[in-house]
């Protein structure tokens, strides 16, 4: 079993086009949940979203490349470029054969599919754009990354709704730890601002009409966001031998399924994923100094997650800082785990806990030490990050400074 170093980070979301921009805004408590560029007609019941408005595809790809790349795959590739550049890795020889790319995406390419349906059902035109299949496949991002960097090892995509990229990171972590891979590019990406998808979320009645306020008593739901997070995970000795800076370490991975209800969460599942992650890391609960919560801002999630955290961490909860960075970058679905993993690693690295913004008054049923509205200085050695998905799928990861 090898230790697993993180040697590269890449991030694109509503808060910026790279890790430095996003981190400065996370630490400053900036909310990226802004009025929608297209409010819908008739207007959606929610007026805001966390759109990556500064991400312009032509800054990163040729027009010809874009024929094959939907926005979620573009985001994935750009985040991967930043992460790989930071790692300094060049994938040749044995490293190319023994490196992995594992991405998460909940929905894959939605835009081409919707365009096709408009032609087919509205315009009664049966001729669909010829590259719809390779554009929409959920592994388009993973395959693009593999092609760009010449990676020949295991390359695939995990789709488990909002836990997709935590599952992807956990899989990559397991592969590097076991020696199956020397390095892995892992994370996730999502591009959610497609009309059909937004209408479907509207119909679920879980999107906040204004902003998301995790753990606040007056919270009204989640805010959708788009983006990508990618991490380079690397065999510890391989990274050490290269003499490059190690940005942090993944030390524990736990997952569970509620087997309870397709959308209603329950306490037992999240408790198990957190307990398994702690056990996997060989740590007692008392060693964790920060939790980056799933914290969607829905009534059900925040209540259940609070209860689960209290069950796992006991009385220590009163002085265990928790925040939900979704209040700033939105709920990016299949990218959520990866973006929040980066936020968690940077928390450990910089000793600054990014806040839960838009916070009003703590819901008494969510009795946690919520880092509210302003960042807090702290120097934890270990932190835990949760994702819980529709379908009852829970993943917790433990990171070390």
């Amino acid at each position, binding site marked *: 079993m090898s230790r697993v170093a993180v040697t590269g980070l890449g991030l694109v979301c509503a808060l910026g086009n790279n890790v430095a921009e996003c981190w400065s805004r996370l630490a400053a408590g900036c909310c990226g949940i802004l009025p929608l560029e297209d409010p819908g007609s008739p207007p959606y019941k929610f007026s805001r979203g966390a759109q990556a408005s500064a991400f312009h595809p032509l800054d990163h790809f*040729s*027009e*010809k490349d874009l*024929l*094959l790349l939907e926005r979620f795959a573009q985001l994935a590739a750009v985040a991967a470029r930043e992460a790989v550049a930071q790692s300094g890795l060049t994938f040749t020889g044995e490293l190319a054969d023994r490196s992995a790319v594992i991405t998460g995406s909940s929905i894959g390419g939605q835009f081409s599919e919707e365009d096709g349906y408009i032609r087919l059902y509205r315009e009664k035109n049966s*001729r669909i*754009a*010829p*590259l719809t299949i*390779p554009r929409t496949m959920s592994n388009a991002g993973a395959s693009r990354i593999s092609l760009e960097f010449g990676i020949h090892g295991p390359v695939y995509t995990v789709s488990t709704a909002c836990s997709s990229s935590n599952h992807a990171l956990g899989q990559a972590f397991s592969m590097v730890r076991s020696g199956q891979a020397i390095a892995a590019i892992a994370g996730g990406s999502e591009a959610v601002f497609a009309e059909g998808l937004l209408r479907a979320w509207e119909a679920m009645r879980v999107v906040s009409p204004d902003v998301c306020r995790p753990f606040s008593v007056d919270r009204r739901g989640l805010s959708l966001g788009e983006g990508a997070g990618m991490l380079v995970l690397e065999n510890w000795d391989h990274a050490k031998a290269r003499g490059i800076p190690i940005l942090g370490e993944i030390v524990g991975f736990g997952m569970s399924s509620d087997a309870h209800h397709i959308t209603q969460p329950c306490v037992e599942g999240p408790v198990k994923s957190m307990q398994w992650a702690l056990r996997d890391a060989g740590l007692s609960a008392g060693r964790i100094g920060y939790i980056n919560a799933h914290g969607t801002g829905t009534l059900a999630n925040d209540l259940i997650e609070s209860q689960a955290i209290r069950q796992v961490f006991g009385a220590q909860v009163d002085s265990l800082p928790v925040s939900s960075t979704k209040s700033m970058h939105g709920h990016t679905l299949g990218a959520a785990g990866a973006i929040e993993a980066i936020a968690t690693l940077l928390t450990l690295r910089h000793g600054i806990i990014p806040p839960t913004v838009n916070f009003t008054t703590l819901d008494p049923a969510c009795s946690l030490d919520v880092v509210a509205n302003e960042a807090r200085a702290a120097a934890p050695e270990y932190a835990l990050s949760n994702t819980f998905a529709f379908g009852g799928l829970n993943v917790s990861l433990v990171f070390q400074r």
Partner: protein
Amino acid sequence: MSEQSASADLGTRVMEVIAKTQRIPLESISLDSTFEQLKIDSLDGINIVFALENEFGINIPDEGVQTMRSIGETVEGVRKLLAEKAAESEDRPV
């Protein structure tokens, strides 16, 4: 319009479609160019066929696609399909 200039027009229109689809300058394409020379792969071919069908209002059968390897062959293929289309509309009872 003479047969020769109609033929030149068709060739130009086909090359314009290909230039636009491939995002390459029209000047880089001639009737003698092969797909290989223009670095047009099978996926590009699918896009080009789709664009040609839209441009000329024709249906290019799958087996037709596989035999097109150059601009000249493509223009000939389109010419044949346009002729078939014209003949069909003439045969149609009034």
